[in-house]
């Protein structure tokens, strides 16, 4: 049952979907950006605390599919304690991994996020995984208050 979906829906994804990490509103965030995927209605708000170029805290609110919820949950875990530059580098790697742009990805370097590599086989679902990261990108660049995948 659903065998061929195992690459897309790994147990880690179900786990983060059931129990999303850092799922809370942040008091006095330094950055607060909304991400929206109009195709499926996924909405999330990302909160960041940034001090001296370092992401001290990250949290989110919103609703989405399992892929998008797991992606943002994993992201908040991973970027905490990273510098803005480091987070941008992970974003670049993640983007390449999910779009399959760059055949060879160092899956060790990307760590836990590798569980989301399966989306590249599902073009319609890539945006579910990347919404969180585009929202982060906008938050780090401090450009917009809200972004959309379309």
């Amino acid at each position, binding site marked *: 049952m*659903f065998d061929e*979906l195992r690459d897309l*829906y790994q147990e880690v994804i179900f786990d983060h979907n059931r129990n999303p990490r850092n799922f809370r509103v942040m008091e006095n965030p330094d950055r607060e950006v909304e991400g929206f995927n109009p195709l499926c*209605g996924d909405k999330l708000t990302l909160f960041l605390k940034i001090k001296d170029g370092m992401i001290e805290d990250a949290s989110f609110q919103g609703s989405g*599919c399992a892929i998008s919820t797991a992606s943002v949950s994993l992201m908040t875990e991973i970027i905490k304690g990273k510098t803005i530059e480091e987070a941008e580098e992970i974003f670049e790697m993640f983007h390449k991994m999910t779009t399959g742009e760059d055949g060879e990805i160092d899956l060790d370097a990307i760590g836990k996020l590798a569980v989301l590599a399966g989306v590249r086989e599902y073009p319609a679902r890539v945006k579910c995984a990347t919404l969180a990261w585009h929202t982060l990108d906008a938050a780090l660049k401090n450009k917009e208050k809200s972004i959309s995948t379309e």
Partner: protein
Amino acid sequence: MSFDVEKIRADFPILRQEIRNRPLVYLDNAATCQKPQVVIDSIVKMYSHDYANVHRGVHTLSERATAAFEGAREKVKAFINAQSHKEIIFVRGATEGINLVAQTFGKANLKAGDEILITGMEHHSNIVPWQMLCEETGAKLKVAPINLQGELIIEQFMALLTEKTRLVSVAHMSNALGTVNPVKEIISAAHEKGIKVLLDGAQAIPHMEVNVQELDCDFYVFSGHKLYAPSGIGVLYGKQELLEAMPPYQGGGDMIRKVTFEETEYNVVPYKFEAGTPSIADTVALGAALDYLSEIGMAEIAAYEAELLSYATEKAKKIKGLKIIGEAAQKGAILSFVLEKIHPHDIGTMLDSLGIAVRAGHHCAMPVMDFFQVPATARASFAMYNTKQEIDTLMTGINQLIEVFG
């Protein structure tokens, strides 16, 4: 003649295939439906034997193409029981039909302070063209609300029909909910106040008999691709006297009678609204689709689909955690639903892995999603070639994915 679904299925070559190693179960018919062999053959025949531009040459092929093209117009006229072929305007689809009315009838008849009345269940294509028109003219868009069953609240609709209302534009059947609106009641109430009515028939026309004279609607639009015909061809029906009074839509070839650099004399209806070379083969194929449907009978199709819907609804209600969105008393063959804690996008991907095609999303009806406070729904929409076994496959799939998500 009794309805033979297996015979109908055999007419649709695309249905004979496996998706992800399972027999295809195609339940996304409200988005677009599949094409019977006669429609595919019609396109092949047109391009293999009869193709040339229409309304132009004196040569044989042009005459053949024109006869086939105008023959399709006659078939549309008969299919919806219009009074004259002059009332049948070929457009790209329902969306273009609505835009045409907004940009011609709308611009000519609406001014600041006037009102256009729609309902809370409209597709974006019956919202945005009116918003654009309102922006240009200063008219106001009014929205009659729906209830939690997904039905139009008729008393509130009637209260919004005022001396300021110039046009009512409503879905004959909702694409997101399946609701069939009480259009005859709406039309007669609007006409009592001298208000014109457009029906968006994109969803209704594949599922029921449509008789524009009996409905007495002023405009009716539909798309070919939801009616077993190719995409890129659709129809705007309009009462002749209205069409004749309307300014043209786009300028170009075919819509003119005489052109000089000083002035242009427009062609008569329907050609006045058909600038440029049309989608000739697709139009002829629309005619073939209508012949095919007429042979089966729209009343027979409607009866069979009603049976499918009630079977699916009954089965769906037995699934714990499943909520049907749209439970109107008058409903077409659409089952929109949400599952507790499982996002429609995940439902869509998981069902696809079982060979089942459903739509997951907002169905181009974001205000409907907002009303029901859901980001999206999963939607199984049925056509005359679907079977009860396919509905069983769908329900088994839903139960399995609920189990996997735990």
